[in-house]
């Protein structure tokens, strides 16, 4: 795809929001996002210091929403800290903890800070977290959250039907897990998310490249790559132990035995570097896959490695807009 300038895009009226991620993807660049897990406390530095490590190497920074159902600083507050640094946050919102009143309310709150990119998720079950005895909400599901945001943005309406004064102009993303079961509906499921209004996708961490490429082939077969921007999810492995843990313990994760074998094949002190190398190689391979629109690099508590990965894969410098 040939690159377009921001001016051309603005003139064409294709930009629906002032999201930096939307602009970069629609200009035709391979986008790069990363994430910042908010702390289990109220110190804003835990967010801002992580964001500072990656700010020059990514287009936008996801802030996770009580990931793995462990209570943390809220995603919206973390987004505000990122925004106040002059960076572009991606608000992650799960449907586990809030009903439709709270979700719509938080969307308005986010938009009031000009947070204009978000990712809709269902969220890990609370039994994984620190409040196993709590209730979950799931008033609406992640697809219905996508619909909700699009309705609020495009129609300027609340779910209840009333008009919104200054509707939230938010670029809407969703997750996709090419590896979860049943495989046969992974592509129809993506189609469903697109039908609900998802504009970009950040995938589950990819370790099984063959399976991901097969998924992408099926995505292209249905022309879905032309309807949504697919960002490949990458998480470098720190050790063979982490790879085994991801394989056996993390829901929906597909870690082939070769990955574990390669990490186990080098001395322990060199496994982290091997993990980075593997991540770099994977990105280089996936850059060539038609329909991959960018990379979402989730270096969990290892944000300082994001610049190296971005630089070694030729994704640096990031476009300036």
């Amino acid at each position, binding site marked *: 795809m040939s690159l377009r300038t921001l001016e051309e895009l603005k003139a064409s009226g294709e930009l629906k929001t002032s999201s930096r991620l939307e602009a970069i993807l629609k200009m035709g660049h391979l986008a790069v996002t990363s994430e910042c897990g908010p702390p289990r406390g109220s110190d804003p530095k835990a967010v801002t210091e992580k964001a500072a490590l990656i700010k020059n190497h990514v287009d936008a920074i996801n802030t996770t929403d009580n990931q793995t159902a462990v209570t943390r600083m809220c995603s919206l507050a973390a987004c505000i800290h990122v925004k106040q640094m002059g960076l572009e946050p991606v608000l992650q919102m799960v449907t586990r903890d809030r009903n439709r009143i709270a979700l719509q309310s938080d969307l308005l709150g986010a938009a009031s800070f000009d947070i204009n990119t978000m990712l809709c998720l269902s969220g890990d079950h609370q039994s994984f977290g620190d409040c196993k005895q709590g209730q979950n909400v799931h008033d609406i599901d992640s697809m219905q959250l996508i619909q909700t945001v699009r309705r609020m943005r495009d129609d300027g309406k609340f779910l209840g039907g009333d008009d919104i004064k200054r509707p939230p102009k938010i670029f809407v993303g969703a997750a996709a897990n090419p590896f979860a079961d049943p495989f046969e509906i992974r592509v129809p499921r993506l189609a*469903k998310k697109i039908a*609900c209004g998802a504009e970009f996708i950040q995938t589950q961490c990819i370790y099984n490249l063959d399976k991901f490429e097969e998924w992408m082939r099926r995505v292209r077969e249905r022309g879905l790559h032309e309807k949504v921007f697919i960002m490949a999810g990458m998480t470098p492995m720190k050790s063979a132990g982490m790879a085994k843990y991801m394989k056996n313990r993390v*829901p929906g994760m597909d870690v082939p035995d070769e990955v574990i074998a390669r990490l186990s094949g080098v001395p322990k002190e060199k496994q982290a570097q091997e993990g980075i190398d593997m991540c770099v190689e994977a990105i280089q391979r996936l850059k060539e896959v038609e329909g991959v629109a960018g990379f979402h690099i989730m270096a969990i508590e290892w944000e300082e490695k994001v610049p190296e990965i971005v630089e070694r894969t030729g994704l640096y410098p990031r476009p300036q807009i």
Partner: protein
Amino acid sequence: MIIASKKPIEEIIQEVKDYKRLLILGCNECVTVCEAGGKKEVEVLASALRMHFIKEGEEKKIDERTLERQCDHEYLEEIRDVVDQYDAILSLACGVGVQFTAEKYHSTPLLPGVNTCFLGANEQRGMWTERCQACGSCVLARTGGICPISRCAKRVMNGPCGGSGRGKCEINKELDCAWQLIIDRLRDLGRLDDYEIVAPIKDWSTERSGGPRKVVREDVQV
């Protein structure tokens, strides 16, 4: 049917220990079928309590009775002439029966002897599993006859979530992923294309969220 499970005997002893004259009241409906509160369970519990209190040197009158239903005025009337002989009733009916009995016999303390669990089926001998959460607005026509509300841990209406693996739920590898079951059934019915129909945002006002519910049928009222 309504599935219940027996409360631990220690908990029941704590609840009844201060009452001298106790009626253990079984129910011949759901709790009999799920073997938690029928005539047989009343007998077993009565014997266990008698033995316990004899061992403790306490004198207690513990009687047994099992009604056809505790969720029906007609059958509850059957104990009206004896209810004054007891200081408390330990009901082994579901929460509905316990409450209905309490409403009927306002001055007699009512204690629950079972935990009411869910609406379910007898999947195999000694195992009951949930099938319905009584949301008041059935979606089964759209989900291959398998309920995502009662059988998905996140009640995802457009599933499965990313945590479905090898047909099982992320919260428990023994638990079937409801959406895997839905997809399998849609495929077998030749209706897999229906999977892509987006389920609309659900109106939960007919379930618990809408407050205590009532069904009124004027055509059968007298």
